C-alpha cells in the first residue's frame, strides 16, 4: 500500500502543472474570443485562485512520493515536531 501511495505521488505532481496549463490556455482562448471586461475578470480570478492550489497539489505529491504519508501522525507531538 505504501508503494502505491508513493507512486501515486508522481500523478499528483504531474496534475499540478497540467491543471495550470489547462487553466491558462483556456483563459487565453476565452479572453481572445470574448475580449470584454467580464471575461477578463472571471478568468483572472480563476487563474489567481487556482494556481496556488495547483502548487499545493505539487507539494502534496512530493510529500507522497517521499513517503511522508506512509505513516500518519497518531498524536499532536508528531504533527508539530
Amino acid at each position, binding site marked *: 500500500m505504501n508503494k502505491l501511495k508513493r507512486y501515486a505521488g508522481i500523478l499528483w505532481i504531474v496534475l499540478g502543472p497540467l491543471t495550470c496549463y489547462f487553466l491558462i490556455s483556456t483563459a487565453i482562448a476565452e479572453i481572445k474570443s470574448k475580449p470584454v471586461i467580464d471575461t477578463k475578470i472571471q478568468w483572472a*480570478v480563476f487563474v489567481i485562485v487556482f494556481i496556488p492550489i495547483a502548487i499545493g497539489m505539487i507539494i502534496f505529491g512530493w510529500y507522497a512520493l517521499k513517503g511522508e504519508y506512509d505513516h500518519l501522525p497518531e498524536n*499532536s507531538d508528531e504533527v508539530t515536531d
Partner: protein
Amino acid sequence: MKPQNKGIWKIIGASSLGTLIEWYDFYIFGSLATVIANQFFPKTNPTAALLSTLATFAAGFIVRPFGALVFGRLGDMIGRKYTFLLTLVLMGGATFGIGLVPGYEKIGFAAPIIVLLLRLLQGLALGGEYGGAATYVAEHAPADKRGYFTSWIQTTATLGLFVSLGVILLTRHGLDSDPAKSIAKFNDWGWRIPFLVSILLVGVSIYIRLKMSESPLYAKLKSEGKTSVNPLKESFAHKGNLKMVLLALFGATMGQGVIWYTGQFYAQSFLENVCKLDFDQSRTILIWAIVFATPFFVVFGSLSDKIGRKWIMIIGMLAGVLLYRPIFNIFKQDTNVKEWLQQDLTVVKQDSSTTVLTDKTLAVTKTVFQNQANMQFTEIKTDTLHTNNIRIADTKPVYTAVTLNTSTYIKFAALVFLLILFVTMVYGPIAAFLVELFPTKIRYTSMSLPYHIGNGVFGGLTPFIATLLTTIYTNDALVGLWYPIIVAAVCMIIGALYINNKIDPNVND
C-alpha cells in the same frame, strides 16, 4: 438527561444558531442574485449585470480562505469564544448594510462598489465562523460522540439555506394580496426585508454567545501558557502540519465542497436555467428535499463515531461521481419542451400586449400550454408590427415557466433529496474529521483554511464554472457536471489512498 449532556446541548444550540444565521446571511445574497443585479448594476446589459453579481458572489467565496486565516489566527491566539462573536457581528452588520444601500439609479456606481465591499466582508466573516463553531463544539464533546455532536453544526449550512429560501418565498408572496403585485413590490423594495431581518437574528445570537464560556481545552492551554504565538507559521511552515493541511484539502474538503454545491446550488440553477422550471416550484422542490435530507447529517455524523469518518465521506463522493449525470439527465428529459411541442397541446391562457417604439411596434404574445401529462409551460413570442400591418416574427419563441405535474414534482423532489443525501454523507462527519487532524493550539487556523478552500473555492465556484462550461461547450447541457465529477473523483482517490479511518480518541493534545 445527564447534566453533562444538558451542558453540551446548550453549547451546540448556541454555536449552531449563530452559524445558521451566518449561512442565512450569506445565502440570501446568492438566492437574490437576479433581483440584486437589477438594483445595483447597470441595466443596459442584463447578462453583464448578472455576471457582475455572480462575480460578486464568487468574490464572497474567494475571500473566505482569507477570513479563515485572519480569524483562525485570532481564534488560536485570543480564544474561540471572542473570535466567533466577532465574526457574527461583522456578518450581521454587513448583511444589514446591504439591505440599506440605495440602488444604482440613486447613487450611481457607489452602489455596486458598496455592495461589493459588504459582500467581501460577509465572505471574510463566514471564513472565520465555521472553524470556530466546529472547534468549540468538538472541544466540549466526548470522544465517542464527537461525530454526532459536531454534525449538528453541519446541519446549519443546509438549514441556513432552507431559512433563506423560506423567508424569500414568504416575503415575495406576502407583500400584496395580488400575487403579481406582490412580486413586483418584492423586486422593487421587498427584497431588502430578508437582509434587514438578519439584524434581529444576529442580535439574539450575540446575546446567547456572550453568555457562553471559553472552550475548556483552549482555556487549559491558555492557563498553562501553551497557546501558539504564531499559528500561521506553525500551521503552514512546519512540514508535519502542512502535510496534514494538504491532505485535508485534497483528500476531503475539495470533494466535499463540490458535492455540496452541486447538490444544493447547481441543482437549483440547472432546474431554473436549463429546465426552465417555474421559480416557486424549483424552490419548493429544494425546500422539501432539504426537510427530508437534513436529519441525515446527524445520522452520518453519528455513524462515523462507530465505523470511522473516512468511508462514509468516500462513498458520498463516489455516489456523486457515478450518479450526477443520470440524475441531471432525468431533470432534462422530463422537462423537454421541444418534445412536448410534437404532442397535442391545450392552450390554457393567452395574453397579448404591444409596445410602441419610435420605428416599430413590438407585439408580445404569452401563451400557457398544457401537454397530455398535465405539464404546463409558457411560450413567449415577440413579433414586429410594421406600419403596413405586416407582422414579422423577430426571434425564436422563448419557452419558460415549466410547471410540473404532481408525480413529476415528487420525482424531482426525490432526486434532489438524493443529491442532498450525498451531501450529508460527505459533510456530516467532516467537522469531527478535521478537528481530530490538528492539535488544539493551532486547530482553528489549520482546519479553517482547507475547509474554506474546499468549500469556498472548489465548492463555491461550482455553479459559476459549471454554467461557464455550458457556454463554451454548447452541445451538451450536462457538460457543467464534469467539473464536480472530476474534482470529486480526484479527491475520492486521494482520500481512499491516504486518509486514515481511525478515530482519534484524544483531541486534548
